[in-house]
């Protein structure tokens, strides 16, 4: 066995050396496709997480009339407190609402200056325990005294969720297509490497080398290419995620949507390990398949 190992490593190294350009082409192909696969998976992860947050924040707002009385407001407060369906709620006073309003229209002075504090309705922001209960909660307050209007965030979130669902399907499709492309490219590169060495394979068969003996150096070669390509992809994905995350964190306008679009470093590590496994499997199996075609004559 020690003899075989020595032979296998010597053959593998000399093959890789002899076919530096071919080997690096395969390696880069793997790296590029796996980088895209990794990127797609991480974006999907971010979308998943953001969607959960958006869904968790499905809320309804009960806007009071601007001239609603204190007892009317207290009655609603009490009713909300007594309802088990309500997870939590928050009173947004006139000054708070006014600040929010000014912030939203900061870039449009005309709108911003068109209202005064007194004209802004105060509101209750209600987070239900389950998204399905939103409507039921809201209906109870629609005709209550002092209530101006009940508005639901549901419609907007539904639209958002359907967009992200579509996005996720797209990303999965891209990831699968790229992965198949990567597998085919590895298979083809190894096939070319074997074709370049068909004389040696023919001689080996002639003198009675076993199929496994012929196959193993090629499989090791494919394994190394897959592994190295995946490692490169891992690095690129890691650095790329850092750059993007820093961009978002450093951006002046803190847009909530992007803040929630968080990809943790354990996500990257997990994806990276997946990439390494995929690289190794694709490289090894691809080369085994490629070499089998030359062995069955």
């Amino acid at each position, binding site marked *: 066995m020690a*003899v*075989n190992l*020595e*032979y296998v490593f010597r053959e593998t190294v000399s093959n890789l050396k*002899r076919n530096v350009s071919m080997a690096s082409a395969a390696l880069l192909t793997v790296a590029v496709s796996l980088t895209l696969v990794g990127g797609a998976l991480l974006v999907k992860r971010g979308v998943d997480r953001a969607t959960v947050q958006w869904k968790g924040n499905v809320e309804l707002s009960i806007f009071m009339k601007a001239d609603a009385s204190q007892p009317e407001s207290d009655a609603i407060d009490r009713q909300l407190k007594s309802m088990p369906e309500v997870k939590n709620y928050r009173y947004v006073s006139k000054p708070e609402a006014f600040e929010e309003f000014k912030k939203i229209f900061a870039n449009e002075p005309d709108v911003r200056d068109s209202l005064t504090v007194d004209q802004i309705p105060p509101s209750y922001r209600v987070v239900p325990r389950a998204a399905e209960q939103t409507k039921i909660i809201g209906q109870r307050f629609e005709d209550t005294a002092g209530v101006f209007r009940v508005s639901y965030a549901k419609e907007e979130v539904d639209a958002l969720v359907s967009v992200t669902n579509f996005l996720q399907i797209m990303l999965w499709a891209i990831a699968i297509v790229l992965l198949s492309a990567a597998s085919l490219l590895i298979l083809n590169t190894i096939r070319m490497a074997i074709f370049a060495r068909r*004389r*040696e394979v*023919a*001689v*080996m*068969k*002639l*003198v*009675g*080398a*076993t*199929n496994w*003996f*012929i196959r193993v150096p090629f499989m090791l070669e494919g394994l190394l290419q897959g592994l190295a390509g995946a490692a490169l992809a891992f690095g690129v994905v890691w650095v790329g995620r850092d750059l993007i995350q820093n961009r978002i964190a450093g951006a002046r306008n803190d847009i909530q949507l992007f803040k929630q679009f968080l990809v943790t470093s354990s996500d990257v590590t997990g994806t990276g390990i997946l990439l390494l496994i995929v690289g190794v499997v694709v490289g090894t199996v691809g080369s085994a398949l490629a070499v089998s075609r030359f062995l069955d*004559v």
Partner: protein
Amino acid sequence: MIRLRDVNKTYKGNVVALRDVSLDIAKQEFVFIVGPTGSGKSTMIRLLIKEEKPDSGRIWVAGKDIGQLSSWKVPLLRRNIGCVFQDFKLLPSKTAYENVAFALEVIGRPPHVIKQQVPQVLDLVGLTKKRDHFPNEMSGGEQQRVSIARAFVNRPLILLADEPTGNLDPSTSVGIMRLLDRINRTGTTVVMSTHDSSIVDTMRRRVIELDRGVIVRDQARGVYGAFT
């Protein structure tokens, strides 16, 4: 050592290569296979190493029915058979020594055996001085001797040679024949296909003549052009 019974082989497109061939070759025999081009000589050799399968009939090599041999045992069959071809089939990136050593490496022989046997066989074929030359640095005759060394280094029971002198001039061919004769005298069965009448006529060994896949002559101490 070799036995064929009613062997038929037809390639795609109804090309008949061998028809109802039966023959026996004993241990330590030296046999010439002669016949015009396309008469099935190479096909017979390919059948013996199970590179091709017969359509019908049975073949025994070294006492084993190779039709019954499972595919993973084919390499073991080939370790008992050395093969030499007209085009040498040497690896251009390896030296004479490495080409011969390669045959032992890939069947898992340990380094100390390789270090001992390769110089021995290179000495036998008279190439000790050229051991570090690459094939393109050697003459055709020298290359053929490397390929014979490679075929013989594992001390096979049988040596199959398909037109081994086909690319060589007459005097070089004589050297190759001396070598094959010497190998035969060590106890190895030699089967050689050839078009070279002077070689056959000089050696006076058993001659099997094929014509369009049929054995038309099997003669002990025969000559190339005799007719039955």
